């Protein structure tokens, strides 16, 4: 093999290899091309699938949105029909189907579906005939599209109603333009309440996704409506209950009104008889009648009060009042009750408590009388104390806090919460043992609530109770300052300060002989407040000890206050001797319980007692008494001690017309007016009264409000219109103790107002005021 041969072979081999490589390359390219084609095809398919999936997702999303919106909507709307109609519209707009309609069962147990008249219509002309027929057609269970949906409780799809043999609305004669239809039920508590159906003029294949949506939509709407229905029922029940309660309150108010009218007669006439000549036995019996009548009346008043509060008919008066005066007048009125049981009744008022507040005097009294009265009632020995202070409540508001502490039987823990509810007492046996209606605390807690305050109780059985209540400053504190001078009377701290701004007890030494420690403390506090100096002792030996140690000289003592029980005690003689040993310059004052009549004249003279004070003490009055003895001039008025013979002081011989329909009340009025020395003419109603005024001359008219024929308001209005230069005084008589009556009376032209039951003294007072002011 020569060189050229070798090279030739090599070349040949290389060419063959190149061709082979090119062939392989070509082949590979072909392969690649084919693979590319396949990829492209695959890509196309993928894109199509992605597009389809996206569309499906979008549709599903839209469906979820519509479902969500429907549920929200159903919760918002007020009526079932509105919910269905909005659901119908939502599906119509979403699906693009041109006709939608709702079949309903008229009631829960109706055996047919009837057209609700609720439509979703995109093309009114196209489906006119079908709509007409639908309106007229009812469906029983299993019949037609609605009936089948009802029967299955599930959605139904009809591809072509013209090919369906259970589609009664297509009778073959009328042109309906309806091809495809579907519908679904709305169920409430598992019962089909309505069927929503949709129609199209083209045939469509069953759309599973849509049907699934509709199924859950029907369920959701049904559930929401169920809840709504439950709420509605609850609301109705609540409103019924409220109505019933109001009716009850009205009934109670009416009843108590009806009871007060005859009570009026019973009490008034009993009083009149007692005023005349009766035997002792009769007097005793009649006194019992009067007392029982009064307690019955107070019960009725409680019931009326409570029902008024419940009927929201109570508004509190807001005038400037002297809180101290209210408190002490209440304390004094309760004193007998307490002192009879030998319970000490105490009242301490912290110096920062304002004397004048803005409030409703009657209601504050009512609260205090109730709470203090209860405390006394449930205390057998020891003391009852009313403490008044200012404090700051949880919401950082200033408030007045009242605390009534007793040493009584106490209230069990489990009873403390219910005790403020109506007709609740600590124990059912309480009523038997202590009496009472159980309304008092309930009224109190509601009144406190009206004063923006709170009430609470703290007690240990057998260890006394503490009931505290508060009045918020927002209630009592507005606009008080400006009105004080006009309101303040003699004996008020304000007045005392005006008279002696420099605290005139400064330099005065006061010796207090008193056994009760709380009273010692309270008394000392007051005297110190006015600048005085107090020495306290509860036994003679204590004072003697101080005298011996030269801490006290009898000459230095300006005033001695001595509690009467000490003089009656075993140490009485010692005390008396001690008191006698004071020089003449020392003024001695005796503090008496309300039940004590310490009137031994010999003792009185020997002891040179210059003044008697009744417990519980109004300390402002005590200070006032000291001022008087010191010669600081002031006018003291003993209020409320009016002599019974003041009745005679009023006008007499008046000609009085009584317009009153009740015969019993007529008799009572006649008897009272005769007793006051007046002449009486009776009219049975407003018309008769006007006729009588026309015919005769009168000095005064007592006018009942509620009368047949013509009521008191109308009568007095007519009278006032007819009057020219004269004005006949008219006093309204009414058994309505509601607020607003007074205003209504005055507005109608009455001169004064008397609430029944009418008592002799009140009647005399009002007649006097009306006739004097003339």
């Amino acid at each position, binding site marked *: *093999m020569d060189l050229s041969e*070798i090279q030739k072979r090599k070349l040949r081999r290389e060419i*063959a290899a190149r061709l*082979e490589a090119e062939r*392989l390359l070509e082949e*590979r390219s072909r392969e690649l091309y084919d693979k590319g084609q396949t990829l492209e095809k695959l890509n196309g398919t993928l894109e199509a699938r992605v597009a389809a999936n996206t569309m499906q997702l979008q549709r599903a999303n839209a469906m979820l949105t519509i479902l969500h919106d429907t549920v929200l909507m159903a919760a918002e709307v007020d009526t079932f029909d509105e919910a269905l109609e909005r659901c119908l519209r939502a599906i119509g707009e979403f699906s693009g189907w041109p006709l939608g309609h709702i079949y309903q069962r008229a009631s829960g147990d109706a055996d047919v579906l009837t057209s609700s008249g609720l439509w979703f219509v995109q093309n009114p002309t196209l489906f006119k005939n079908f709509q007409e027929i639908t309106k007229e057609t009812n469906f029983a269970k299993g019949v037609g599209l609605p009936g089948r949906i009802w029967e299955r409780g599930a959605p139904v799809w009809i591809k072509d109603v013209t090919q369906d043999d259970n589609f009664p609305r297509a009778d073959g004669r009328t042109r309906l333009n309806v091809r495809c239809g579907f519908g679904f039920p709305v169920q409430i508590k598992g019962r089909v309440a309505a069927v929503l159906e949709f129609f199209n003029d083209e045939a469509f294949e069953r759309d599973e996704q849509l049907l699934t949506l509709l199924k859950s939509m029907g369920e959701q709407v049904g559930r929401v409506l169920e809840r709504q229905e439950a709420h509605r029922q609850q609301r109705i029940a609540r409103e019924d209950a409220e109505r019933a309660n109001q009716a009850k309150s009205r009934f109670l108010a009416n009843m108590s009104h009806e009871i007060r009218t005859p009570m009026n007669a019973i009490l008034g006439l009993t009083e009149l008889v007692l005023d005349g000549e009766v035997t002792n036995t009769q007097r005793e019996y009649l006194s019992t009648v009067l007392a029982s009548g009064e307690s019955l009346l107070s019960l009725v008043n409680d019931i009326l009060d409570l029902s008024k509060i419940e009927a929201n008919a109570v508004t509190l008066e807001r005038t400037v009042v002297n809180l101290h005066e209210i408190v002490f007048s209440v304390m004094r009125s309760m004193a007998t009750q307490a002192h009879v049981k030998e319970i000490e009744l105490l009242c301490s008022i912290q110096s920062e408590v304002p004397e004048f507040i803005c409030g409703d005097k009657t209601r504050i009294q009512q609260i205090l009388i109730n709470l203090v009265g209860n405390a006394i009632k449930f205390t057998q020995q020891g003391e009852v104390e009313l403490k008044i202070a200012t404090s700051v409540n949880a919401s950082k508001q200033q408030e007045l806090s009242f605390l009534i502490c007793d040493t009584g039987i106490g209230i069990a823990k489990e009873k403390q919460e219910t005790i403020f509810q109506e007709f609740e007492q600590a124990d059912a046996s309480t009523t038997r043992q202590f009496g009472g209606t159980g309304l008092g605390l309930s009224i109190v807690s509601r009144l406190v609530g009206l004063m923006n305050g709170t009430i609470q109780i703290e007690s240990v059985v057998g260890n006394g109770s503490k009931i505290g209540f508060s009045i918020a400053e927002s209630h009592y504190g507005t606009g008080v300052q400006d009105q004080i001078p006009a309101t303040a009377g003699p004996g008020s701290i304000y007045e005392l300060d005006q008279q002696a701004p420099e605290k005139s007890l400064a330099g005065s030494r006061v010796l207090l002989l008193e056994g009760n420690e709380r009273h010692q403390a309270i008394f000392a506090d007051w005297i110190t407040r006015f600048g005085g100096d107090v020495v306290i002792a509860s036994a003679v030996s204590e004072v003697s000890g101080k005298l011996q140690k030269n801490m006290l000289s009898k000459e230095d003592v300006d005033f001695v206050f001595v509690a009467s029980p000490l003089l009656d005690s075993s140490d009485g003689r010692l005390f008396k001797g001690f008191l006698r040993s004071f020089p003449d310059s020392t003024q001695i004052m005796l503090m008496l319980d309300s039940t004590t009549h310490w009137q031994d004249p010999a003792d009185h003279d020997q002891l040179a007692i210059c003044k008697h004070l009744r417990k519980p003490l109004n300390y402002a009055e005590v200070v006032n008494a000291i001022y008087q003895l010191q010669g600081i001039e002031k006018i003291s008025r003993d209020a409320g001690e009016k002599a019974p013979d003041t009745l005679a002081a009023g006008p007499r011989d008046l000609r009085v017309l009584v317009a009153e329909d009740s015969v019993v009340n007529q008799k009572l009025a006649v008897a009272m007016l005769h007793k006051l020395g007046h002449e009486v003419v009776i009219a049975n109603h407003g018309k008769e009264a006007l006729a009588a005024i026309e015919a005769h001359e009168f000095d005064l008219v007592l006018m009942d409000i509620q009368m047949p024929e013509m009521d008191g308001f109308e009568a007095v209005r007519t009278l006032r219109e007819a009057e020219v230069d004269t004005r006949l005084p008219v006093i309204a008589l009414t058994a309505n103790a509601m607020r607003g009556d007074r205003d209504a009376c005055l507005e109608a032209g009455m001169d004064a107002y008397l609430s029944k039951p009418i008592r002799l003294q009140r009647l005399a007072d009002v007649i006097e005021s009306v006739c004097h002011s003339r």
Partner: protein
Amino acid sequence: MKGIVFTAFVQYVEDTFGDLIVEQMIAGCDLATDGAYTSVGTYDHGEIIQMVVELGRLSGRNVPDLVKGFGYTLFGTLVTGYPEVVNHVEDSFGLVATIDNHIHVEVRKLYPDADLPTFSHEFRGPDELHLLYESERGLADLAEGLLIACFEYFKEEIELQREDLSDGAGTRVAFNMRRVVN
């Protein structure tokens, strides 16, 4: 067998024994391709066996030595053609360890029809590697040549012990490699 092995073999014969021997070797064999190989093609491995046997006869050298020598040159060819294979590793053990799990995986992606030997490896310490060659073709000698060239490429001194586990058939051969640490 991949065409690159054939073109590399022809090149090796030409470089080592000259053009004449190449032509005599091809002429002395019964080859379907007539010795015209391209690196992108795939050829019957019997052709390379025929050519090695013929080369042995022509040159008077034993076949295993020839195959080992070819393996040694083939490594250089592969590194030149596919440099990324050696760029990824730090030393010969690193390269050997990647054969089965990495190199052959990549080869199969390019040539799905490639019929590759398996190389399973096991480190018996940081400086000792055990490699098991298994192939129907019995080209353990080729593998040995490749390994030696590899050690040289990474400039490493490594003791290589070879143990035939297939009674001299060369189809299942264990290579034990121990790095000589100076």
